[in-house]
Structure formats: structure tokens, C-alpha cells
């Protein structure tokens, strides 16, 4: 029997949808021109870039001149944080973030600390929510930026961005949100949210890797992260990645058009998987909330077993998943997110992230549940922690 391939790691990355790839193709070959060149080959690419910008702006509820293309979500996060910190350093050098941010934000903040900035890392509750009141309490006269992710990549928690934005606005502090995991999964409207800066990355919603975008509200002063030509109104120089830019716009456009259906589909798969797994396997904990959670995200801790073993055995069954365990990432510490929501180390080590997407089916969930039941049983039989538990030690 051939092992099926069941991809349950859509939060890590997605494939490029065929229609997106088709839209990108000409810009690799015939239409290779530099978008800054004056001859027609360049001019038509300038048009393609500006059309893509208009599409992304429309999908996010922004104006065209508020969208800047970058090389990735990480770059957009770096630019937003370092750019605001630099531009406003005379006002103050204090930044507020959460303790469960993506490394692109956390490590940027840590870098700024070395450069003399002060950073407050807000705690989260047991489901991963930031309390807006904590944001307000943390704001000081020298605070220049609050950066809190829209939705968490590991446990799917959707933060109360709108409420936080009302607070930052009241205190005259800029607010950036990393919406890399949110885009394509839940609605985003920058004006409605009230954020000043927002990051997205193409490859999380069936677009290409190597391209992201940063929304910068008109009138927000920000320093450039790179220096060079006039591209992206001089704020983000470098020859435009035309196929990537066309790709991210095409993908976002498709994602926004089919958002409701995609939400319903991934939500149904996640709920089915959660219910079946809980019914079949004892001592399993759902990490993160059940409501206000990304529809396709499921994060579970299986007590008495370790995550890497679980992932390897799932992989042998053709199931591609991810873990909050240490070992898979090459570090020995479990996920900072799972520790921040209060999981003890040994339980955090036994966690599994499943993220559903376009290509998954009900049958995938049935197969997953069968495989998990077998594997968890096998690993528990091998575990001295399980042995102690069964014997009542």
C-alpha cells in the first residue's frame, strides 16, 4: 500500500495555487523587464506592480500608497519595529510587545534592547490572550510602539486588536500587528482594526515565498530599513520582485474572495479532528482557546509522550505536522508560546500542531485520528512517565 501524503502544516507554509502561479509565470520569462525602465518592457511591469499594490490595498481596506512590498513577513516585521523605533527615538525608547510573538518580532525587540531600547513583554492568559488593560498599564511617556500579533502561529489565539488599537490611539502610541497568520484565514480591514502598521506574507495564503507586504498608515513617520534606489517610494529600495508581487496580490485576492468558504471548511475540519481525537485518546489537552481562534489551527498536548517521536511516527504514516517540542527545532527548550500559557515543560514537550487547509478532507481527519490513536498508544507503552502514571506513582 502506498503511504498517502496528508499535509497538515498550512501554518508553516502553503503551496502556490495554480491560478496564482499562472499569473506569475510571464514575469519570469517574457516580461522580465525592470519595472523602473522607461521602455515598454519596463512600463508594463510598473503597471503590474501598481495593479498588485491596488489589489493588496483593496483586500486590506487600505489606500494604495499605504502598501509597501517587502521580501518576507520577517522583513516587514523588522522594518516596522526598527523603523518606528529609529524614527521616534527622540520621543522615547520604549516598546511594548507580547511574550508569544513570532521570533521575527521577539528577536527584533531583543536586538533593540541591546541597542539601548526598553521592551515590555506582556504576559498572556492560559489561552494566549493579551489583556488590553495590560497594554494600557504598560504605556509610559517614552513608549513609541506597541507590536502585538493578530493571531498566534502556534495556538491560533486571535488577539483583541481593535480594543488595543483604541488604547494606543488614545495615548498617541503607534501600533503594529503581525498579521502573517491571520491573512487569508480571517477578515482584515486596517481602518476597521485601527492599526498603524500591519504585516502579511504571501506564502501563508497560497501565494509565493519570498514576498511580504507592510501596511503603513499614511502620515506615519518611519525610517527606512534599507537604502538604495527610489523603489517603493524610496522607503524600501531594491528592484521589484515582479513575479512575487503579482503572486502575493493574486493569492490575497483569491483568499479574500473565498474567505467565508475557506473559514467554514477549515473550521469544520478542525472541530471534527478535535472532537474525534478527544473521544478516542485520553489525557489530551487543547492548547489555546476554542473561540477566537484561527479556524484551521489545532494544537494538542498528549501527556506522557514527547513531540518529536510523535512527529516522526506521523511522518512515517504520511502525515506532515509540526510540534511545539524542542527537539524538532534543534533547541532543547519547548515552545515559548506553550510555556507562556502556563504549560509545564513535560506537557509542552508532548505537543502537536495541526493546521488544516484547502487540500484536506474529512477522510484525512479519519486517517489522522486512527494513526494518532495507534502512535500515541505505542509511545505511551514505551514511556516511563506513563508507566508511573498507570501504577499510580
Amino acid at each position, binding site marked *: 500500500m502506498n503511504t498517502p501524503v496528508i499535509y497538515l502544516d498550512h501554518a508553516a507554509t502553503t503551496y502556490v495555487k495554480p491560478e496564482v502561479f499562472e499569473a506569475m509565470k510571464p514575469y519570469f520569462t517574457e516580461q522580465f523587464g525592470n519595472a523602473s525602465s522607461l521602455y515598454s518592457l519596463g512600463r508594463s511591469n510598473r503597471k503590474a506592480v501598481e495593479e498588485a499594490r491596488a489589489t493588496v490595498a483593496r483586500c486590506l481596506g487600505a489606500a494604495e500608497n499605504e502598501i509597501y512590498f517587502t521580501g518576507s513577513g520577517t522583513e516587514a516585521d523588522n522594518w516596522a519595529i526598527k523603523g518606528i523605533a529609529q524614527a521616534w527615538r527622540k520621543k522615547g525608547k520604549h516598546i511594548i510587545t507580547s511574550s508569544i510573538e513570532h521570533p521575527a518580532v521577539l528577536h527584533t525587540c531583543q536586538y533593540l534592547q541591546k541597542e539601548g531600547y526598553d521592551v515590555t513583554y506582556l504576559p498572556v492568559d492560559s489561552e494566549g490572550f493579551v489583556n488590553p488593560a495590560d497594554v494600557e498599564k504598560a504605556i509610559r511617556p517614552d513608549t513609541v510602539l506597541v507590536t502585538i500579533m493578530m493571531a498566534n502561529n502556534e495556538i491560533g489565539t486571535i488577539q483583541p486588536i481593535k480594543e488595543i488599537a483604541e488604547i494606543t490611539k488614545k495615548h498617541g502610541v503607534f501600533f503594529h500587528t503581525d498579521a502573517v497568520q491571520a491573512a487569508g484565514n480571517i477578515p482584515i480591514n486596517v481602518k476597521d482594526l485601527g492599526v498603524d502598521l500591519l504585516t502579511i506574507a504571501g506564502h501563508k495564503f497560497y501565494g509565493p515565498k519570498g514576498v511580504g507586504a507592510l501596511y503603513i498608515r499614511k502620515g506615519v513617520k518611519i525610517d527606512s530599513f534599507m537604502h538604495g534606489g527610489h523603489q517603493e517610494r524610496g522607503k524600501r529600495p531594491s528592484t521589484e520582485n515582479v513575479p512575487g508581487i503579482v503572486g502575493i496580490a493574486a493569492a490575497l485576492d483569491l483568499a479574500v474572495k473565498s474567505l467565508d468558504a475557506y473559514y467554514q471548511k477549515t473550521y469544520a475540519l478542525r472541530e471534527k479532528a478535535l472532537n474525534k481525537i478527544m473521544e478516542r485518546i485520553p489525557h489530551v489537552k487543547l492548547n489555546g482557546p476554542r473561540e477566537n481562534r484561527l479556524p484551521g489551527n489545532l494544537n494538542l498536548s498528549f501527556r506522557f509522550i514527547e513531540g518529536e517521536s510523535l512527529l516522526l511516527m506521523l511522518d512515517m504514516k504520511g502525515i506532515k505536522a509540526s510540534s511545539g517540542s524542542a527537539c524538532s527545532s534543534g533547541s*532543547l527548550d519547548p515552545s515559548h508560546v506553550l510555556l507562556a500559557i502556563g504549560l509545564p515543560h*513535560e506537557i509542552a*514537550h508532548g505537543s502537536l500542531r495541526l493546521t488544516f487547509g484547502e487540500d484536506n478532507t474529512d477522510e484525512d481527519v479519519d486517517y489522522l485520528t486512527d494513526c494518532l490513536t495507534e502512535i500515541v498508544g505505542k509511545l505511551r507503552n*514505551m514511556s*516511563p512517565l506513563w508507566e508511573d502514571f498507570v501504577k499510580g506513582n
Partner: protein
Amino acid sequence: MYSEKVMDHFTNPRNVGEIENADGVGQVGNAKCGDIMKMYLKIEDGVIVDAKFKTFGCGAAVATSSMATELIKGKTIKEAELVTNKAVMEALDGLPPVKVHCSVLAEEAIAAALADYRAKNGMVEDYEGGGCTGCCGGCHAHHQEFDEEE
């Protein structure tokens, strides 16, 4: 990232289980670091006639436990004491640098089980448990050491 041998011992681990009334039992590691190995030995006339294990840990932890039990079965206590983490690693055709601490844990599990045997038989006076039982940061030390070697 893992050799075929590691994957073989991970998917088909040898000697998983417990030994009733084992002559020596040793447990090392801790859940905080993500690895616990428990080793059971049956010893007759100074020879390890059977070895079994239970492990909570990653693929490398399971594979090194499996290989360690294979390497010491049939050996005298003296010979088993000479089975080092390097020997376990070599028998598995190597481990990724960040997983070397798993082989150290396997060596420590053997040592702890043998120490328990000696203590039960009045062969040593003060047995302190052996291996790592608390979070000393040692795993991280191994991790760093080998990272630097890369």
C-alpha cells in the same frame, strides 16, 4: 537528519519493556529537558542476561536506549561499564550534534542501573543515584559544545 540505523531502532526499538524483579534499575534525565530513560537489568553470575528499557523522549533518545540495551546484553558488568556514549553513537552510524546528549543519557542509564545492582548487593556503600536527575543545564551544555564544533 537521522541515519537509517537510528530510524530503524526508533521504529522497531529492541528490548522495550520492564523486567519483573530486575536486579538493577536506573532512571536518568528529567521531563523538563524532554528526555527520561529507565533501564532494567537481569544479572546472573556477573553477566547481563537481559536488558529492557522505557524512554520518554525524541527519536534519538528511543534509538540510543534501544542500541544501548543491545550492546550490553550478554556482556559482563565490567564490559558493560566500558560501553560509552561514543560506542552507542557509532553503533547507530552517528547522531546529529544536538542529539549527542541522548547518547550520554544512554551511557548514564546503564551506569545508574549497574550502580543500583551494586547497591542492592552491598557492593558499594554510597550510591547517589547517578546520571542527571535535576535540571542542571547539562543538556544545554552538551548542545552548545557540539554546536561550536560544527
